[in-house]
């Protein structure tokens, strides 16, 4: 296998990290629904932290994209 195709495979593998973020986002929204179902008046306060948590989890997934970009940048050399 030549280096170019290995780099492409590596870039694809970098996307595998999104699975973890999928689990994380599912957890966050699931727990949010659970919390609101138990205590509907807490929705405002819980919701604020839910969105922060959502954005943080999503950002972790996107580090995978950064790795793909790094590989793409190195590919040219």
């Amino acid at each position, binding site marked *: 296998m030549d280096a170019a195709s290995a780099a492409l495979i590596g870039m694809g593998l970098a996307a595998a990290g999104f699975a973890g973020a999928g689990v994380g986002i599912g957890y966050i929204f699931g727990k949010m629904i659970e919390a609101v179902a138990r205590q509907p008046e807490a929705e405002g306060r819980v919701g604020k932290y839910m969105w*922060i948590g959502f954005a943080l989890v999503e950002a972790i997934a996107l580090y995978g994209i*950064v790795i793909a970009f790094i590989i793409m940048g190195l590919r040219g050399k």
Partner: protein
Amino acid sequence: MESNPLHPFELHPYGTLSLFGIDISLNKAVVMMWVVIALASWLLYRAGRERRLIPTRLQSLAELLVEFIKGMILDTMGEKGLRFFPFIATLFLFILFCNLLGLIPGSYTVTSQIVVTAAFALFVYAMSLVVGFALHGFRFLGILVPGGTPVLLLPLMVPIEIVSQLARPLSLAVRLFANMTAGHTILAVLFGMALSLPLWIGWAPFVFTIAINGLEVMIAVIQAYIFTILTCVYLGDAINLHGHAEGAH
């Protein structure tokens, strides 16, 4: 037709211009930043020009914004943090307008350049260090020792804390950059699909882009909020060494 989803992020200077050997040529991102600054300051100037007891719509928007940023600062930094209000508000507005204006087709998302977000993040981090050392002197190094650590664990905890400190500017920069880049890349990929597929199926990715655009507006606001609140948390750490007392995280 070869389509590269990363094409929208390329920057081409409008000609060369240099000052004392430093390249200061203009490009789309620079012009976009000027637009952002002009629009944000014009809007807020108009909102605050005549203060009425019964606010106009624009004025109540500005009041809402000020209250929101003030609440954010009080939650994370406490009373002492209000000195940083102008800085935090400027940072929040600039990132918010960059993110939102970048969603307009044909414009440019300044925050999708890692050099911009890295400059913000390094500035914020350097500022938290300067504030910490100015307020507490060398006691500020106590930030490397979490409260209640047994002496035996110190050789383990201090390196971990140093790494986590060094990761702060990195994660701050990469988070904003990656979110903006990824959103626009997804849009570019979907539009590329819509153009290259035959019409009977090509409408599906096009419809999907509408939903993604809605998500992107939300992400733009949330990421501006996250960047600002993490700035508040880092500055709050520097101001009230282990400032967990006031409900900071």
